[in-house]
């Protein structure tokens, strides 16, 4: 397994500095810290991102949202980019239990 695929095994959650706003096409995500605005263009992606709770792995969330396994690599890349922009973070114990 490559490093690239391993993000599916991580427990991610929305960064505490990020706010999601639903829109007809999907959602806007705004990061108050770095003032970056990101557009989530597919409702399915919004569902996945909203479901990332830091308790389940990305893989479990994708399964839970009914995303066909054939599409996981695309989600993998997108989620990696969202983490790179600090929109998503690896969950810390305190954040999850809080």
């Amino acid at each position, binding site marked *: 397994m490559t490093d690239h695929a391993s993000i599916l095994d991580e427990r991610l959650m929305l960064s505490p500095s990020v706010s999601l706003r639903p829109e007809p*096409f999907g959602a806007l995500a*705004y990061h108050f810290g770095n003032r970056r605005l990101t557009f989530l263009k597919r409702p399915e992606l919004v569902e996945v991102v909203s479901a990332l709770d830091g308790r389940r792995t990305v893989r479990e969330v994708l399964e839970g949202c009914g995303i066909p396994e054939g599409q996981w690599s695309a989600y993998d890349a997108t989620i990696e980019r969202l983490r790179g922009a600090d929109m998503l973070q690896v969950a810390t114990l305190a954040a999850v239990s809080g």
Partner: protein
Amino acid sequence: MAERPTGGTLIQQFEYGLDAPICLTWELTYACNLSCAHCLSSSGKRDPRELTTAQAEAVIDELQAMKVFYVNIGGGEPTIRPDFWHLLDYAVEHQVGVKFSTNGSQITPERAARIAATDYVDVQVSLDGATAEVNDPLRGVGSYATAIRALDNLFEAGFKDAKVSVVVTRQNVHQLDDFKRIASERGATLRLTRLRPSGRGVDVWDEMHPTAEQQRDLYNWLLREGEKVLTGDSFFHLAAFGEPLPGLNLCGAGRVVCLIDPIGDVYACPFAIHDRFKAGNILDDGGFATVWRESELFTELRSPQSGGACTSCSAFDACRGGCLAAKFFTGLPLDGPDPECVKGHSDLALMDPDRLAPAASQDHSRGSVHKPVSACDENPLSGLTFIPLEALSASR
């Protein structure tokens, strides 16, 4: 209302509008200690109907509920309002980030330290010349020094990444590299915007808007430096030269952009303060969310722009006919070319002796307003200012 397509590009989605604006400007007051020649909002005197502190707080509450993540606060000079710093704190406490525009007159070292200590606040200092000789004739004597001092104070207080906001004009377009240096020396970012013939800008637009040749220079400069400067998507009409510029290249008026003025009137964009583009009032029409989501004007704007006279132009997909406000205030048809159409398609219409620019629907100017010094101004005093030689040669 036009039917929103599913899928497609983000820009296609934006054409149909959003549940809340992305880029909301809120002019807090029409009062200003300066009288800039090209002021978009014809500011000067305070409007006695200005929103009270409680009404302004209610606006912030509503923005929070709508998840308007940040608001651009301007004026007039917003820091003149006695409750400005309170409203700033109130917004931040309510998860509404603020970027405010100022001429710098109130940014003392103490204020700068306070701003630097507050998260979610961004500051934009206006400067329209990289030298006092170019800046002060437009913005007032001493305004260059004031702006530089404000930027210095912010930098020394440890504020990171202030914005230096420049309206690109015939007089300053040769100074773009200097502006960039002024910003970077102070850890700031340059922000360039287009001169609109809005507010008092309508009186000086003929003398101040960049020439056709300067537009090309500006376009080339933006292609070269565009990733490192901000433009507020200002120059999408230049995309007709060939390459798209960084940004959305879309007129966002009433779709992703709007303006709340000091008395609560809502306009389609900051450059369109005129009854024709007024969607409603937040006090009279059920609040900002209602105006944004339901007003007749915004509903009308949320459909793909019709090309009109531009449909047959090869560049229409790139520039989409340009800026609505620029067309309106120069008396051009809204579905035709931009007055600064780089293909020259508006040249004939601009020369039409019967062309009628609309009368202003409001003016808050105080008595004396600065005027740009024109190269052909015959008054030997000309406000006792100098325009550098390069500026004159570039404008001819």
